[in-house]
């Protein structure tokens, strides 16, 4: 186990970190110490003040999308998990309904995203419907290729990652605790706030870690749904890789990793997952 971890996780990570401090030219990496990858990345961050530099703008945008997605997947995911755990009585139905949540994963990423155009596009179903109902006279442009569509697609994809761990935590809650709360005269909200949420916390944190790490590194969904007009941390890495600027890409990857680790460690501060599991 340790060996697998070291070989396939630590070692590659070490390589990425080492390469991030190399120099490069048009076609090869030069194994000489250089912080060019980093200094280029933060180019203009001081000179352009008070305007934000590219990298800060990009990260702010990525964080904003990440936060929105996290809050919404948490709300929806929690609700769905609650319904599955407490309102669906039969085990079979619980399994069937959970599997239904995987439907968004049945088609390929590209096809799924292309399918949004006929729905949200200028001549799409939603706009046609609203126009037909006389609610709007001009098609709504912000439905597609906007932050709205990005968040919508991310929700559609990743709510599942919230549902499963929260559901898992919830079904482990001893039903007698809820009955006891009911007997002691607690309202539904009080039971939710004082019993279910605290006991579902490990699931919430694990789900959050899934969602946050995926969204922070995502560039495909943000790219396609944002019409390639919205920058993301992952996109910068991809652009650098495609230009064969591996050290610069590695430097950006290290920065992204650092920021993601910061967020995750803050989360685990709130809940000690190891203790809770």
């Amino acid at each position, binding site marked *: 186990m340790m060996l697998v971890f070291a070989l396939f996780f630590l070692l590659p990570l070490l390589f990425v970190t080492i390469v991030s401090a190399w120099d490069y030219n*048009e076609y090869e990496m030069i194994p000489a110490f250089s912080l060019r990858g980093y200094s*280029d990345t933060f180019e203009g961050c001081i000179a352009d003040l008070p305007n934000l530099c590219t990298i800060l703008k990009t990260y702010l945008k990525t964080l904003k999308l990440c936060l929105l997605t996290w809050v919404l997947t948490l709300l929806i995911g929690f609700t769905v998990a609650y319904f599955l755990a407490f309102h669906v009585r039969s085990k079979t139905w619980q399994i069937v309904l959970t599997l239904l949540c995987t439907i968004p994963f049945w088609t*390929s990423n590209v096809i799924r995203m292309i399918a949004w155009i006929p729905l949200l596009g200028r001549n799409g179903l939603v706009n046609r419907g609203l126009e037909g109902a006389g609610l709007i006279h001009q098609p709504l442009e912000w439905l597609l290729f906007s932050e709205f569509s990005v968040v919508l697609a991310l929700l559609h994809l990743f709510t599942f990652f919230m549902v499963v761990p929260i559901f898992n935590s919830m079904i482990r809650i001893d039903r007698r605790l809820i009955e006891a709360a009911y007997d002691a005269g607690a309202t539904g909200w009080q039971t939710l706030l004082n019993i279910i949420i605290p006991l579902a916390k490990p699931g919430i944190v694990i789900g959050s870690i899934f969602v946050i790490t995926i969204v922070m590194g995502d560039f495909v969904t943000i790219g396609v749904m944002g019409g390639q*007009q919205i920058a993301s941390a992952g996109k910068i890495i991809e652009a650098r*890789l495609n230009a*064969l600027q591996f050290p610069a890409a590695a430097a950006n990857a290290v920065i992204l990793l650092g920021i993601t680790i910061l967020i995750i460690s803050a989360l685990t501060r709130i809940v000690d997952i190891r203790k809770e599991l």
Partner: protein
Amino acid sequence: MSKSSKFDRLINRRTVLKGAAGAVGLAAGSGAITGFPYVRSADAKVLRYLGTAVNEGDEISKKCLADTGIKIEYITATTDDVTKRVITQPNSFDVLDTEYFSLKKLVPSGNIFALDAKKIKEFDNLTPVFTKGQLPNGKKIGDQGTAPWKVLYLEGANSKTFSKTPTEFVTLIPTVYNADTLGIRPDLIKRPISSWTELLNPEFKGKASILNIPSIGIMDAAMVVEASGQHTYADKGNMTKAEIDLTMKIMTEAKKAGQFRAFWKDFNESVNLMASGETVIQSMWSPAVTKVRSMGIACTFQPLKEGYRSWASGFCVSKAVSGPKLDWAYEFVNWYLSGWAGAYLNRQGYYSAVLSTAEANMTADEWGYWMEGKAAVGDIKAPDGTILEKAGATRDGGSYDERMGAVACWNAVMDENDYMVRKWNEFIAA
């Protein structure tokens, strides 16, 4: 030009499967090969062919197998990934099909092997577009950017320096090329479009698009900037830092004003944007325009007065190839230029590098429509038999001489590529 897309690959995979079945049938039918695992038989001539989906027609590999006995195994990737693979895994392919502008990265890496011009039968019949930078009728064409004739020859077999004068060591044996321009929806624009400046015309606010591949996107941007009279570049394919700044500033202002509906990165995205009416004017590639049209939607590959941005690709081999494999590679390249494949490419709207052999493999009507700008006498069909144009249609942009003669610049890798990529990221983030 990364014409490979998920969608294409889907189609290709399907047709490749059919092709594989056909190939096995052929082998069984011929009786020459009796051992069961056909691919493993000792004499099987197999070449691993790395490239974008542009030239990787299943029909081509089938025909090649029938004519020469060489089995082509396609490895399909996007332009960027092809380059990455050559640099990092030179042993993973035999024949490389790539674009001339990539050579500035590939040749210094030492991972590709220059082919010997003397062993290429049709070398002297190559269109002078590649060798001299002029049309067959002698007209000079635009040489901005990484024009093929600038990087066609090496100084020696293992040299990493491009030769200015012809030598026998050829970096890429040319195969296919085309001239790209803006695609428009004439039914939605309803007026003539004649200049690149229209891409940033506020009239099309929220309905324009450009491709998000920095090295190509910036060339299209430069065509727009120059057309609008804001700057004249010494070489659009090799800008100074100040020129990159200026170009990106103009594009950023347009982006902030909401000019662009979306940027696209793969072939299929561009087709969808155009077909759904999300955009009405955008940078585009010829087969994408054809695809939109084949859906019954009006789309024009609009010739513009400032000219075209051109690209070209060709064959070389991996430095790891030697012995009989090298001979097969020559045999394959010679077969490719012998006409059948050239005609196949011409029928898709590309141009083949050896015109005479391609002409011999096309009907007079096909040649007239695709190459001479004449109205089609009968229906014009794609290589797979679907009808592309009805009788009476003429090709957008006209004849070969009109289209290739109006080339203004070529896809390029700039000296300031690193800076350009950073500025492009800034543009996307703006």
